[in-house]
C-alpha cells in the first residue's frame, strides 16, 4: 500500500513541472500556431481559417527576387556583426579580466551604465558620426560587399550594431575569463608566451563554450535587427529582412497581412532552427574553464 502511494506522489512530482511549464508556455504556443495558420489563410476567426487554405501568401518566395537579396544582406549583417562582437569582446574581456591598467574599473562601470542609453536617442548623433566616416576615403564608401563603413552602407550598420552590443559582450567575456584558473594563466605566461599568444592559443580555446554562446546570442540578435538598418540604410537594395518587412506595411497601398505574416515566419524560421541546434552551447555559458562548472 505504502509503495503505491509513494509512486503516485513521485509521478506527480515529476509530472508537475512539465504541467506547470506547459500552462505557462501556453500563450506562446497558441500565438505561434495562429501565426502559422494565418500565413496559409486569408482570414482567421480565432484559430480557424475562413475560406480555403492558400499558398498565395508564400508566393513571394518565387515571385519576388528582392527577398533573396535582402536575405543575403541579413546574413552578411548578422555574420559580420557576430565576428566583430566576438573578436572585440574576447580581446577586451581578456584585458578587463586579466590585465591591470588605469581606468579599468571605471570602464567596467561605464559599460553597464551605457546600456541605459536607448539606441533610439543616439540615432541622430550616430547619423552625424556615420556621415563623418563617409568622408574617409575607401573606408567610407568603397569596400566590396559591405559597401563601406559610413552612412547608408551595410558596413556602417554592422559597426553601429557591433558597438551597441559590446557592453554586454565585454561583460560576458570578462565573466568567462574570470572563471579560468590562474594556474593556467601563469603557466602560459611563464613559458614565455606574450599575452597575445597566451590569449589566442591557450586561454581562448578553454572558454570555447562561452565564446560559442556569445556568438550565438549575437547572431540571433543581429538577424532580427530592425531599427539601425532601417534608419541608416536608405537604398532598398541594401536593406535587411526586418526593414523590408516593415516596408511592406503601409496605409495607402494594399497590404496583404497574410503575406506580412509569411515574410515574418520566413525571417523567423532560419534563426529558430539555428537556435535549436546551438542551444546546447548556450547552456554552457557558465560551465567553461578549468575552474568551476560541471
Amino acid at each position: 500500500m505504502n509503495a503505491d502511494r509513494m509512486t503516485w506522489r513521485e509521478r506527480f512530482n515529476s509530472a508537475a513541472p512539465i504541467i506547470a511549464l506547459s500552462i505557462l508556455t501556453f500563450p506562446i504556443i497558441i500565438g505561434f500556431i495562429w501565426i502559422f495558420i494565418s500565413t496559409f489563410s486569408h482570414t482567421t476567426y480565432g484559430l480557424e481559417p475562413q475560406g480555403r487554405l492558400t499558398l498565395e501568401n508564400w508566393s513571394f518566395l518565387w515571385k519576388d527576387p528582392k527577398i533573396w537579396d535582402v536575405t543575403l544582406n541579413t546574413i552578411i549583417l548578422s555574420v559580420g556583426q557576430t565576428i566583430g562582437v566576438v573578436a572585440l569582446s574576447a580581446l577586451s574581456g581578456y584585458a578587463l579580466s586579466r590585465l591591470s591598467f588605469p581606468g579599468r574599473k571605471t570602464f567596467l562601470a561605464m559599460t553597464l551604465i551605457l546600456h541605459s542609453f536607448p539606441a533610439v536617442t543616439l540615432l541622430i548623433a550616430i547619423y552625424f558620426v556615420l556621415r563623418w566616416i563617409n568622408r574617409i576615403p575607401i573606408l567610407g564608401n568603397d569596400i566590396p560587399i559591405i559597401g563601406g563603413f559610413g552612412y547608408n552602407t551595410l558596413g556602417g550598420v554592422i559597426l553601429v550594431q557591433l558597438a551597441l552590443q559590446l557592453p554586454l559582450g565585454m561583460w560576458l567575456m570578462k565573466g568567462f575569463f574570470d572563471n579560468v584558473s590562474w594556474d593556467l594563466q601563469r603557466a602560459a605566461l611563464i613559458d614565455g608566451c606574450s599575452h597575445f599568444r597566451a590569449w589566442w592559443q591557450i586561454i581562448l580555446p578553454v572558454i570555447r563554450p562561452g565564446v560559442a554562446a556569445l556568438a550565438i546570442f549575437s547572431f540571433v540578435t543581429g538577424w532580427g535587427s530592425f531599427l539601425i538598418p532601417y534608419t541608416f540604410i536608405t537604398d532598398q537594395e541594401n536593406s535587411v529582412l526586418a526593414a523590408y518587412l516593415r516596408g511592406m506595411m503601409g496605409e495607402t497601398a494594399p497590404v496583404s497581412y497574410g503575406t506580412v505574416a509569411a515574410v515574418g515566419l520566413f525571417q523567423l524560421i532560419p534563426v529558430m532552427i539555428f537556435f535549436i541546434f546551438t542551444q546546447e552551447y548556450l547552456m554552457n555559458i557558465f560551465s567553461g574553464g578549468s575552474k568551476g562548472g560541471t
Partner: protein
Amino acid sequence: MAVTTRTATAAPPKEGVLRKLRSASIGFWFMSPAVILVVLFFFIPSIIVFGLSMTNLSTSTGFQNYDWVGFENYHKIFTHPDAGPTALRTIFYVGATLALFNVGMALVVALLSTHIPRRAGFIFRALWLLPRLTPSVIYIMMWKFMAAASPYGILNRYFPFLGGQNLLPDAPWVFVILTNGFIGASFGMILFASAIESIPRDFMNAALVDGCNAWQRIRYVILPALRWPLLFVTTYQTLSLLTSFEQIFILTDGQFGTEVWALWSYHRALSNYWGNFQWGFGAALAVVLVVIGAVAAVIYMRFFQFNQLVQEPLVEAL
C-alpha cells in the same frame, strides 16, 4: 611557483613602474578596438545628445537656424502636465514587467525547465525564445489578434465570457506587460538555466540525499549559485525595460494611457507623421531617462556589491 614569488618580492621601484607601464600598454592594445567603437558610437553620440538637449533643434529650425536654449527644454519637461503621469507609468511598467517576467518568470521557467528531462527542457526554452526571435511587427500582430473583438480575436472566440469586445483598450497594461514580458523573460531564462546546469551534479544529489526536498534545494543550493546572474539580469533588464518602447509603439502607440517615457521621447524626436521632429526636446527627454537609468544602475551595483566582481586581477609574473 617559486619563480613567481621571487620576482614579485625582489622587484625594485623602477622596475615596478616599468612593469605597470608595460601592463597598461598591453591592456590598451587589447582594449583599443572595442574602446574606439564604444567611443565613436556611444560616448561621442551621448555627448552630442547632451548638447542637442540644450538647443531647440527641430525640423522647423533645420540644421542652420537653431538656437542654444540652455536648460529651457528641461524646464519645459518639469513643468509639463504629462511629465508626472508619464514618469509614474514608466516606473509601474518597468517594475511590474521586471518582477513578473524579466526576472520572475525567467527564474520560474529556468527552474522548471531544469527539473524535467533535458530534451524537454530544451524544447520549452526554445519556445520561450520564440518571442524574442520573431520580428516585432508579427509578434505584436499576434497579440493584437489575441485581444481582438470577436469573431476574429482568439481570446474572445474561445472565452465568450470576456464580452466579445476588443480587449486591448479595456486592459492595455495587461497586454503591454505580457508582450514585453514574454520577450524579456528569455534573457534571464538562458542565463539562469545555464547557471543552474553548471552546478555540479554532486551538489544537487547530495542535497536530496541529505533530506532536502525540492523546494529546500532550490533555496539553499540553487539560488545562492544564481547570485551573479540575478544581479546582472536585474540590472541589465531594468535598463532594457526603461529604454524599450518598440513593442508598446506597435501595440498601442502610447494610447489608452500607455505612453512611457522612452516612447514619449521617441514620439517627440523621431516619429511625427507631419514631420515636425523636435530633436532638441526629444533629446532632453532622453537625457532624463539616461540619468534615471544611470542612477538605477549605480544603486544596483552598490546593492549587489559590484566591487567584489571587479577586483584587480592578480599581478602576473611579467
